[in-house]
C-alpha cells in the first residue's frame, strides 16, 4: 500500500497526559524522531483529578520511573508544594513519598521539559483513525485530514475514548470537563476487533478558597525534611503549604441518601465499573452506612490560585445539590463551588491483548499505555508510558525489547498483573500486590533499576555518576556496620542495654545491634567510627540499615516462594498454541490463549486455571519446543 503523508516520524504518541508525556520523552531521548499529538497543547501534563503525585506504592512507581530515566519525578520535585513521606513511622519498605503539586506549575514545567527535548515535536489536533497495513502500523489520520506517518504508535488517550460525563441526570460526551471526547478513535479501536470495556471514574468539586472557614479544619503540614522523588534532586525549592482535614456529618449522609435517585451511579445510568478504593461520597454513604463521618482533605491547588480541591468528596450528583451538600459540611457553610464534581465513563481495551512490552500482540508497532489499559492514577499511567515509549523506540531501532520482572519493580508487578489477569475495575497499584515488597523500597529504586536505564540510554552521565557514588558510599557504611563491634567493656554498652535487651552478650556488630527493637538509626550513627559519622548522610545510613533489617526476611521469603513455586521462571514459548496441548480442556486452553502468559508463573496467576491444567502446561513447557 502506498501512503502519502504530510509528515512522518518514527514514533507517534497520542495523548499528552502522564502516560503520553513519559512515552514521548523516552522515545525522543532514545533517538527516535517522535511526535506527541494532543488535543490542546496548553493542557499537556494536566492533572485531571487530585493535584498530587505519589502515595503508598504510587510513590514507589515514581521513583522507579526516575531510576529508569523518566521525567515525572523531576517535574514534581520542581513543582510540589507539599511534600510528605507517608508511613514515616513504619518500616522503610512501606514508606512512600507523596507531594501535592501546584497544578498549573506542574503543567507548565512538563510542557517546558518536552519542548526542550531534542527529536520531539508537539502537534495539536485530534487523531481519528489509525493506518494499519500488513498487521503493522503505518500512521495516523487527524480530524483535519492531515496524515502523519509512524513506524510505531503509542495510544495514551486517558479517559477521552468515548468519554461520557455524568452530573445528575445530565450526560454529555467529553474527554474531561470542557474538552471533547475521542469518539472516532474509540470506534477505530473497535473496528480493529479489540475487546473494549467500560470503566468509570469520578472527581470531587473544587471550591473557592476565599469562601472557606479555614479555622474549622485541622491543618496538616509538609515534612520538615522533604523526601524528593528524583534521585537527581538535591533540594526542594518550592515554598511548602498546609493542607486541611475535615469531616462530613451524619446530616450530610442523610441528605445524600435522600437524594440517591438523583445519582447516576444508583439510577443505573452509569454502566462502567468504578474503583473500589476511590469511591464516590454516594458509595461511601451507602456501603458504609454505619460510619457517621468521612474524612475530607482540603488541598489548595497552587500558590497563585484560590481553587481548592475537596479530596474525599468525589460525586456525580447534580451541581445544585453538590452546592447544598458542601454547605452542610462544618467549615464550608458559606463555601462556593467553582467547578462541580462529575463522573466519567470511558472505553478501555482489555490489556490481555498486550505483551510484556505493552505492544498489542496482533498489530506490530501499536502500543497502549495508561487508562486505555484499565489503570487509574497518574503514576500508573506514567510508568506504562515510559515502558511503551522505550519499547516503541527500540522496536523502530531494531533493539531488544525492555520489560521488568515482578521481583525487581512495582512496574513489573503492574504490567504482569495487567497482561495476565486483565482488569474488572480501574487498576491501582498497592504494595500488597508485590510478593517481594520488602525488597522493593522507594529508596532503592536506583539500585534496582538504574542499570537498565543506563543500558537503554535514558540515564545520562551525571545521573549515572551520582548513582555510583551513592552506591559506593552505602557499601562503605554497610561494611562499617558489619565490622564495627560494641563490646561489653565499651562505655556505650550500659546505655544500650537500657534501650534493648542485650542479655550480657560479650560483643556484637552494629549490623546485629541495629536489628534489635529500640535501636534507632540515630543511635547507630553515634556508634559509627568517626570517619563514617562525618561523611554519612542520614539517607545513606537509613538505606544501609533497611538492607540490613530486611535481608533475612527477604531470603526466607525467597525460599518459601521458591519451594512452592519453583517453576515460576520457566519461559513459555511465545508461539505456543495452547489449544494443541494434549490433555488441556477447551476452557483452560481458551483462558491461556486469552492471557498468553510468557512464564509459568504468569500462567499460575491466571484466575480460574485448574491445578490439572497447570500440571499439563508445566510438563509441556518443561520439554521445550
Amino acid at each position, binding site marked *: 500500500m502506498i501512503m502519502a503523508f504530510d509528515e512522518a516520524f518514527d514514533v507517534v504518541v497520542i495523548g499528552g497526559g502522564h502516560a503520553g508525556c513519559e512515552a514521548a520523552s523516552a522515545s525522543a531521548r532514545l533517538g527516535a524522531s517522535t511526535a506527541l499529538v494532543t488535543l490542546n497543547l496548553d493542557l499537556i501534563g494536566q492533572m485531571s483529578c487530585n493535584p498530587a503525585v505519589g502515595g503508598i506504592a504510587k510513590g514507589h512507581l515514581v521513583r522507579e520511573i526516575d531510576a529508569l530515566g523518566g521525567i515525572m519525578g523531576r517535574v514534581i520535585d520542581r513543582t510540589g508544594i507539599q511534600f510528605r513521606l507517608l508511613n514515616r513511622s*513504619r518500616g522503610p519498605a*512501606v514508606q512512600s513519598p507523596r507531594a501535592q503539586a501546584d497544578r498549573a506549575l506542574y503543567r507548565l514545567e512538563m510542557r517546558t521539559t518536552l519542548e526542550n527535548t531534542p527529536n520531539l515535536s508537539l502537534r495539536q489536533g485530534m487523531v481519528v483513525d489509525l493506518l494499519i497495513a500488513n498487521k503493522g502500523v503505518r500512521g495516523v489520520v487527524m480530524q483535519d485530514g492531515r496524515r502523519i506517518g509512524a513506524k510505531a504508535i503509542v495510544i495514551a488517550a486517558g479517559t477521552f475514548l468515548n468519554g461520557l460525563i455524568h452530573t445528575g441526570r445530565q450526560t454529555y460526551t467529553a474527554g474531561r470537563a470542557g474538552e471533547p471526547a475521542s469518539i472516532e478513535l474509540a470506534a477505530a479501536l473497535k473496528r480493529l476487533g479489540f475487546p473494549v470495556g467500560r470503566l468509570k471514574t469520578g472527581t470531587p468539586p473544587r471550591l473557592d478558597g476565599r469562601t472557606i472557614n479555614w479555622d474549622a479544619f485541622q491543618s496538616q503540614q509538609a515534612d520538615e525534611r522533604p523526601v524528593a522523588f528524583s534521585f537527581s534532586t538535591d533540594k526542594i525549592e518550592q515554598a511548602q503549604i498546609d493542607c486541611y482535614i475535615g469531616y462530613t456529618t451524619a446530616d450530610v449522609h442523610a441528605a445524600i441518601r435522600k437524594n440517591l435517585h438523583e445519582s447516576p451511579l444508583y439510577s443505573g445510568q452509569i454502566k462502567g465499573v468504578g474503583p473500589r478504593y476511590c469511591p464516590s461520597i454516594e458509595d461511601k454513604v451507602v456501603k458504609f452506612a454505619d460510619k457517621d463521618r468521612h474524612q475530607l482533605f482540603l488541598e489548595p491547588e497552587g500558590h497563585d490560585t484560590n481553587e481548592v480541591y475537596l479530596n474525599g468528596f468525589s460525586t456525580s450528583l447534580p451541581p445544585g445539590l453538590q452546592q447544598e451538600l458542601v454547605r452542610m459540611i462544618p467549615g464550608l457553610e458559606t463555601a462556593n463551588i467553582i467547578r462541580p464534581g462529575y463522573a466519567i465513563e470511558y472505553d478501555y481495551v482489555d490489556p490481555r491483548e498486550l505483551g510484556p512490552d505493552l505492544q498489542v500482540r496482533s498489530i506490530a508497532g501499536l502500543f497502549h499505555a495508561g487508562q486505555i489499559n484499565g489503570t487509574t492514577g497518574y503514576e500508573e499511567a506514567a510508568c506504562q508510558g515510559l515502558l511503551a515509549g522505550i519499547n516503541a523506540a527500540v522496536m523502530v531501532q531494531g533493539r531488544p525489547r525492555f520489560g521488568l520482572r515482578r521481583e525487581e519493580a512495582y512496574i513489573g508487578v503492574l504490567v504482569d498483573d495487567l497482561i495476565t489477569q486483565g482488569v474488572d475495575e480501574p487498576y491501582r497499584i498497592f504494595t500488597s500486590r508485590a510478593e517481594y515488597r520488602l525488597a522493593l523500597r522507594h529508596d532503592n529504586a536506583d539500585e534496582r533499576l538504574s542499570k537498565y536505564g543506563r543500558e537503554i540510554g535514558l540515564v545520562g552521565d551525571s545521573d549515572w555518576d551520582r548513582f555510583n557514588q551513592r552506591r559506593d558510599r552505602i557499601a562503605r557504611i554497610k561494611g562499617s556496620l558489619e565490622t564495627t563491634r560494641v563490646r561489653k567493656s565499651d562505655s556505650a554498652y550500659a546505655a544500650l542495654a537500657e534501650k534493648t535487651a542485650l542479655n550480657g552478650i560479650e560483643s556484637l556488630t552494629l549490623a546485629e545491634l541495629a536489628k534489635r527493637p529500640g535501636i534507632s538509626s540515630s543511635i547507630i550513627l553515634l556508634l559509627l567510627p568517626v570517619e563514617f559519622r562525618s561523611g554519612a548522610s542520614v539517607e545513606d545510613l537509613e538505606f544501609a540499615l533497611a538492607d540490613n533489617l530486611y535481608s533475612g526476611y527477604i531470603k526466607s521469603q525467597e525460599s518459601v516462594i521458591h519451594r512452592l513455586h519453583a517453576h515460576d521462571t520457566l519461559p513459555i514459548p511465545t508461539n505456543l498454541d495452547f489449544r494443541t496441548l494434549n490433555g488441556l480442556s477447551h476452557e483452560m486452553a481458551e483462558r491461556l490463549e486469552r492471557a498468553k502468559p510468557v512464564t509459568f508463573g504468569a500462567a499460575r*496467576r491466571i484466575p480460574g486455571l485448574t491445578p490439572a491444567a497447570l500440571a499439563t502446561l508445566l510438563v509441556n513447557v518443561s520439554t521445550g519446543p
Partner: protein
Amino acid sequence: MDTIVAVSTPPGRSAIAVVRLSGPQSLAILRVLVQEEQFAPEPNHVTLKKLLAESSNDLIDEALVTYFQSPHSFTGEDMVEISCHGSPVILRQLIDLIQSQEARLAEPGEFTLRACRNGKMNLSQAEAIRDLINAQTQAAAAQAKRQLRGELSEALQPSKQELIRMIVTLESAVEFVEDDLPAVQVEEMSKTLGRVTSRLASLAETYQAGRLLREGLRVTIVGRPNVGKSSLFNNLVRTERAIVTDVAGTTRDSLTEAISLQGIPVSLTDTAGFREAGDKIEAIGIERTRRAMADADLLIVVIDGSCSLQDEDVEVLKEAREHSFIIAISKGDLPRVLTLDGQLNGTQVVHVSAMSGEGMPDLMAAILEPFGSDSGSVGLLITDSRHYDLLTRAKSNLEKASRSMAQGAGEEIVLADLHNALRFLGAITGETTSEDILSEIFASFCIGK
C-alpha cells in the same frame, strides 16, 4: 533448582528399596548420610557404605550408593541412588534425615519432569510423556477434587480466615495510612495469632496417628517363651492361626496377620519367645524377633501374671525400652502372683486373660491410644507427609510472626511471615491471591479519599 527425594520402589516391606535424590545438593546430602565430608564417589560406580544417623551416629543401614554426575543422569541433574533394605522403619528414618537436609519430598512425576526439562526426554518420545501427562493430570485432578470437598481444607478454613483477617488489618494500616481507619489492636491480634498457631500445631500432631492410619499400625507381641503370646495373638486375630501348646518355644518363626481394630488397620506380629537360643532354628527365630521389634510401631510385652518376674522377662523389658511399648499381664484366669509396682515408669499395664477374654477391650484401647481415647470415631488426621510438612512450616512462620510482633517489629515484617504462612496453607486449601486480600480490605473498610 532445589533437591528432591523419593522412595522409588513400591511402599511396604521388601528385600531392597531404592531411594533417589536429584538436584544440586544430592552429593552433599550423601556425604552427611555416610558422615564423610570428603566422600568423593566415582560417578556411576556402586559403593557399599554405612548410613549413619546425623546426631547419634547410630547405624541406620548398610546400603549400596551410587552417584550420577550431571548431566549424565536420568534427570540430567546430580543424582544419588541408595539401595537399602526394604524396611519401612529404615526408609522412614532415611527420608526424615534427608528431608532435614536441603531436600524436599518429590511431587508425583517430578523426576520425570526434571528429566524433560533438562532435555533428557523430548516431546517426540511421546509415549512416555503422554503417560506422564495423564498421570499428572489425574493425580492433580483427584487432588483438586479432594480439596473441593476436602475435609482438611474445610478444617483449615477457620484458621485461614482468621489469618486473612489479621493480614487484612495490618495491610490496611500500611496501605491506607491517610484513611481514617481504626487502630490495630496488637494485644487482641497476638491472642488470635496464638490461637491459630496452636490449632495448626494440634492438627499437625495428628500426623503421627494419621501416618499409622494410612500405613497401618505395626504391633509386635514379645515376651519370654510360654507367657501366652500366641493365645493373645489368636484372641486378637480370633482364629487358631498360631500353633499353641504348653511346650516352651512352639512359635519358632514370626507370624504376621493383618487385622482391623475398630476400623484401624493393624499388622499384628507374633514372635518366637525371647531367651537363650536352644538350637539353631530357635536362634534364627530370635533374630527374627529382634527385627520384628525394630520394625514395630508398638510392642506388647507379655508377662505371665501367674508366676513371679523372671530374669528373662527383665531381659525382654530391657530390649523393649528402646521402643514404644505396653505391658500385658497374661493368664488373668489363673491366680495372680506377679506384682510389678515401681518398675514401670508410666508404661501402660493391662491385665488380660486370653482364655476368658477378660481385659481384652482394655488391651485394644491401649493399642489404639495414639488415635485418641474415642477411637470409634477417629477425627481428622493428617495422613499425607506433604500436608504435614506444609502445616509445620505454616506453624513455624506464625510463631515467627508472633515473636516479631512481641518485639514491636513493623507491620511489613509481621506481614512477611503471615503471608508465608498463608502461602503454605494455600498449598493445601488453594491459593489466596493479593486480589482476594484487597477485596477483603475494601469490603471491611471505607477506603479512599
